[in-house]
């Protein structure tokens, strides 16, 4: 283990996991850096298996995994001491109340009895669990169960928190609150957060880095800023009036512009003007009778990037299939 490895929260090197003949993870290599990282992918992409491989919960066919430089297969106890997990499945112990559940998790993580109880109440307070914490877990609402599950994952103050679909079943207010807690843990307490989810707006809202997994392979990885930035700087102009005329006028004046029709409105996408050309835009708008509502730097929606990446990966897979059939 090098010092560099110990700094990186998660490093996976060419890991392969097979269930029978089906390859679920096919040579996955990635680094999860500090901050919040989102793991996105379609159903069956291998996200849950990837999460389990980080914890050493599945036997790998090949490859290496390191969590803060520790091999989870050689020293699983050490890894699980510094990692907290919110599993996707609603795993509970029927008969225990919410607070007992969190306390049990704390005790299993090695906290002494009194300390475990004190801290359970503390984190449940922080998660806004209220008096429902005294009810048996199997009778709790989905949202409260999720809070209890989250509290159980952070009660032992782990360095890294892994969450599998953390906003499943939460109403919009609870969802916002959950995302807020994750941001607080990452920004104020220096925790590394690794979120596996389908909900792209969640990833866009809180993540620093995103990893797209499809067909058991990493298809795309990078920071949100870098991925959502268009290939060349662009601005989007939203306005009311004859946008086609405005686009033509701008092109006449040397500013490449095109009209894009979206679901709810039309916009003009134009190559980012220099500060001195801004007046040209205002003047052209005034001449064509368009009232500008906003002019802002353009970003590519994560959803578009995700869908595009999946399409590309499908095309690659199809080509590979055809090549294989041809060779047979």
């Amino acid at each position: 283990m090098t010092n560099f490895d110990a700094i990186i929260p998660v490093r996976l090197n060419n890991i392969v996991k097979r269930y029978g003949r089906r390859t679920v993870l096919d040579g996955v290599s990635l680094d999860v850096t500090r901050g919040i990282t989102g793991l996105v992918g379609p159903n069956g992409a291998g996200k849950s298996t990837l999460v389990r491989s980080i914890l050493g919960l599945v036997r790998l066919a090949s490859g290496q995994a390191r969590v803060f430089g520790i091999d989870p297969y050689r020293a699983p106890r050490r890894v699980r001491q510094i990692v907290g997990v919110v599993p996707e499945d609603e795993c509970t112990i029927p008969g225990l109340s919410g607070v007992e559940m969190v306390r049990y998790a704390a005790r299993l993580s090695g906290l002494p009895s009194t300390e475990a109880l004190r801290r359970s109440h503390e984190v449940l307070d922080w998660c806004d669990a209220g008096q429902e914490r005294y009810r048996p877990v199997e009778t709790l609402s989905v949202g409260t169960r999720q809070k209890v599950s989250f509290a159980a994952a952070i009660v032992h103050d782990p360095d890294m928190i892994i969450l599998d679909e953390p906003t499943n079943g939460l109403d919009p207010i609870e969802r916002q609150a959950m995302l807020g807690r994750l941001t607080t843990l990452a920004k104020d307490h220096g925790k590394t957060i690794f979120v596996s989810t389908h909900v792209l707006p969640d990833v866009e809202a809180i993540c620093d880095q995103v990893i797209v997994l499809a067909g058991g392979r990493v298809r795309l990885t990078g920071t949100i800023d870098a991925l959502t930035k268009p290939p060349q700087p662009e601005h989007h102009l939203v306005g009311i009036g004859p946008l086609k005329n405005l686009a033509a006028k701008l092109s006449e004046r040397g500013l490449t512009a095109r009209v894009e029709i979206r679901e709810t409105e039309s916009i003009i996408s134009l190559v980012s003007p220099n500060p001195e050309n801004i007046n040209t835009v205002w003047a052209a708008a005034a001449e064509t009778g368009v009232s500008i509502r906003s002019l802002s730097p353009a970003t590519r929606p994560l959803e578009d990037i995700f869908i595009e990446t999946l399409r590309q990966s499908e095309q690659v897979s199809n080509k590979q299939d055809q090549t294989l059939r041809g060779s047979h």
Partner: protein
Amino acid sequence: MPLQDVGYRPWNKKRCGPSTTIWVIALTGIRLAWESRWLRRMVFFAWSPALIFAASFFAFEQAVDEGRLTSLGTAAQRGRNLDGVGMLGTVLADALGGNDGDVDVQTTRHLVWTRLLLAFMRAPQAMLLAAVLGLVAPTLISRDLRAKAWLIYFTRPVGRAEYILGKSLILFLLVLVITMLPALALWFTGVLVSPSVSVAFETWDLPIRIIAASLILAIPTVFLALAYSSLTAESRIASFAWFATWVACWIAHGALTTADLVASTQDGGVSTVLSATKADQASRSSKIEVSPLRRNFRWFARAAGIDTGQDRWAWVSPYHALGAVQAAIFGIDTRPSSWWPSSMTLLLMSVSSLVILSWRITAPASS
């Protein structure tokens, strides 16, 4: 909004070790199991046979105190011939053997207490143990599989060994509460009702034998029950498998023993199967004419360890195998041919159950 929301605070104090984890799993498991009204009733009921046995201890010590031991033995012997004796009578008749002369009180007491304790652990307690384990054990692992609670354990610093030991400890504690504790209480009661406290020194080995016999009872049964629980997410199936094992093996044992009895009857009625020794057999044959009622009583007597006849098919049934090994531990029947095959059965039961547990409970998971 809580009154004292201190927010999220770091925690970096010293953590407890794996042995604490085992206790945490065990105590939480007991707490959850104890919520079952049926378990509470059964554990309460499991102590009630101890009252009957305590009365036997009292009756025996009263006879010793009043110097009526010889006459009691003679009466017991007569009573046994008339099929009208109870448990204490049978034990006394065996212990005194119709001896009309002076009786060595110390030796007789040791023998009678040993027989009574063995009978207590065999007949009521072992059967109650099967019932209590059948109630608690099937849910212990199958419920975790069903509720996916295994992720709660194995995403935390809990290893396979701690998990298995924690779950086993739940059952061990229950088994000890319904077998070892009442048996020790009986021995203590015996000392209290005896004429002198020095009796405790005369019978000092009995508590050790009780502990050893309880452990022999607990280890294979607990592991077998847990192995069944780990094989399915449906606790009902595990329950069925547990009870089916006891009943089916008991029936198989009964069938084989009956076949032996029939064969021995056809051979002239001298059974080497039932006799403890040839001399004992000869002595019994000369004195006792076994009536049909007595023959019917024999199954209980043998199950309870009161009848010391050799049971060559004991290894077929876990219940009878446990009895044979416990009889050896209490020094009632120490012939290797009596306990060796049975101890092999129990060893095989324990080892195969542990292999199943290790195979089913994997961290990292095999699939």
